[in-house]
């Protein structure tokens, strides 16, 4: 099949997947927060008298955002003001192209990779792209020509720049362990077994890096407990002057970033599409090719290769959703950090810990 056409189809499918996930992420956030606080959450949006626990709520929200007045204050820089939300959204949504959603599937004679592109530097690419989205935030705050939103953008920049360091340093431990920066190879490596029975998932190989990564990455998504850039409740954030759908784009970007974060965490730390002990195309000692479960105690369970692919895709989705719900749980559990505490956590705890992690990893690699 034509390569360009294939990439286009993948992009469209992934974008649809992302939009649906992001729409329902808004509902999930409201529902999870409600359930944590012993409430019901949004369940009133009805179509033809059917409310079905609020499954139409995201559409009602989107419709409301679309029909609100899109007011651009006269004192703003018009072009940048309109352009800034697009930058944040574009760069945070673009991360999805490098994420492998499953093992390459064989349809007819074609081998189709379930990811849009598979570059050698994917691991660096996703962090480069996701850190680009800060430009949209500082430009949004700055072009509003308002002191409060400008300060909000400044807070966002200082926060994200400081946490970027810890984020990338925690990744170095992973880079030392994994054989490649290519995400598909990273996932392949995670589906092999350590000592024959432990899956080599990132969280088991690099537990400290996982903790540092998740804290730094939550700070990168600018949500509570690190939501100083927007701080909607008292000090005013960078999208103060935004209204209507432009504000909606910023809100959606929040969720898109969280989804991207859960995708990255799933890929790097939870084995991507790997189900432990499930192999496809495994060459046995007698020369036959086997796909299915091979348990460490020697039992084998053969599954056809199509079912293996489907199971792996489903496993990836389930892992992503679990990580996403965990991130929501974090967001609805902790109070916000003060700015000095934020900086202290970033520079005085996370970065030394990440360096320590690198040293320990290097020593272990040298010994083993």
């Amino acid at each position, binding site marked *: 099949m034509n390569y360009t056409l294939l990439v286009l189809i993948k992009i469209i499918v992934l974008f649809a997947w992302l939009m649906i996930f992001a729409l329902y992420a808004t509902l999930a956030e409201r529902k999870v927060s409600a*359930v944590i606080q012993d409430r019901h959450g949004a369940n009133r949006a009805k179509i033809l008298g059917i409310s079905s626990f609020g499954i139409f709520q995201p559409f009602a929200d989107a419709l409301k955002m679309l029909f609100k007045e899109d007011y651009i204050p006269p004192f703003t820089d018009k072009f940048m003001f309109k352009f800034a939300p697009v930058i944040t959204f574009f760069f945070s949504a673009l991360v999805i192209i490098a994420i492998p959603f499953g093992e390459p599937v064989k349809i007819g004679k074609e081998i189709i990779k379930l990811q849009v592109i598979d570059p050698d530097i994917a691991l660096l690419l996703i962090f480069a792209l996701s850190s680009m989205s800060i430009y949209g935030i500082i430009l949004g705050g700055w072009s509003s020509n308002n002191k409060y939103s400008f300060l909000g953008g400044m807070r966002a920049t200082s926060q994200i720049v400081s946490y970027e360091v810890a984020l990338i340093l925690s990744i170095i431990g992973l880079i030392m362990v994994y054989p490649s920066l290519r995400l598909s190879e990273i996932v392949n490596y995670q589906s092999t077994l350590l000592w024959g029975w432990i899956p080599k998932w990132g969280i088991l190989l690099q537990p400290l890096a996982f903790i540092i990564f998740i804290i730094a990455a939550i700070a990168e998504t600018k949500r509570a407990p690190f939501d100083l850039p927007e701080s909607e409740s008292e000090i005013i954030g960078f999208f103060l002057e935004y209204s209507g759908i432009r504000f909606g784009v910023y809100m959606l970007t929040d969720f898109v970033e969280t989804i991207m974060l859960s995708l990255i965490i799933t890929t790097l730390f939870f084995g991507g599409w790997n189900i432990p002990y499930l192999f496809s195309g495994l060459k046995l000692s007698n020369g036959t090719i086997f796909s299915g479960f091979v348990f460490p105690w020697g039992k084998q369970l053969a599954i056809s290769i199509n079912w293996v692919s489907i199971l792996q895709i489903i496993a990836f989705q389930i892992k992503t959703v679990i990580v996403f719900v965990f991130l929501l749980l974090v967001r609805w559990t902790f109070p916000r950090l003060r700015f000095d505490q934020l900086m202290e956590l970033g520079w005085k705890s996370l970065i030394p810990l990440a360096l320590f992690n690198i040293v320990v990893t290097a020593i272990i690699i040298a010994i083993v």
Partner: protein
Amino acid sequence: MKGFLYFFETIKGLLVTGKHLIVNFFFHTINYIFRIKTKRRGSVTTQYPEEKREIPPRYRTKHRMMFNEEGTPRCVGCMLCVTVCPSDCIFVKAEEIEGKKIATEFIIHVNRCAFCGYCVEVCPEDAIRMDSGKLDFVSDSQKNLSLNLLFKGKK
């Protein structure tokens, strides 16, 4: 060292909210998707128009007029309720019919009523009560909110 303590307390906090999430989600699923009624509901909300809160017997709700066995109102037009009403929202007209004084008009402007219940307490004939149990009477005009208590039909 302090950092480690914070870290463990954070985990504890996550466990608390996580427990709420899982337990409440379980009961929500049972109650609202599988429609199995359990004693524990997973939430403290009353879904108002569908479910209604149980009103205590002495709770002061919409007023109602008591009637005699003959169908005439018990109100004798003594004007005590009009006098005692702090919101000045009761209007009574009484006439003498067949040697008895009977109210011919008894209007309460609910918009002004404070639901203090003084009129009920002061009434010597036990003519007015506030135990109808109706809490939700809303309207878009002042007119509909002046209740004519002598009107016996459904309203």
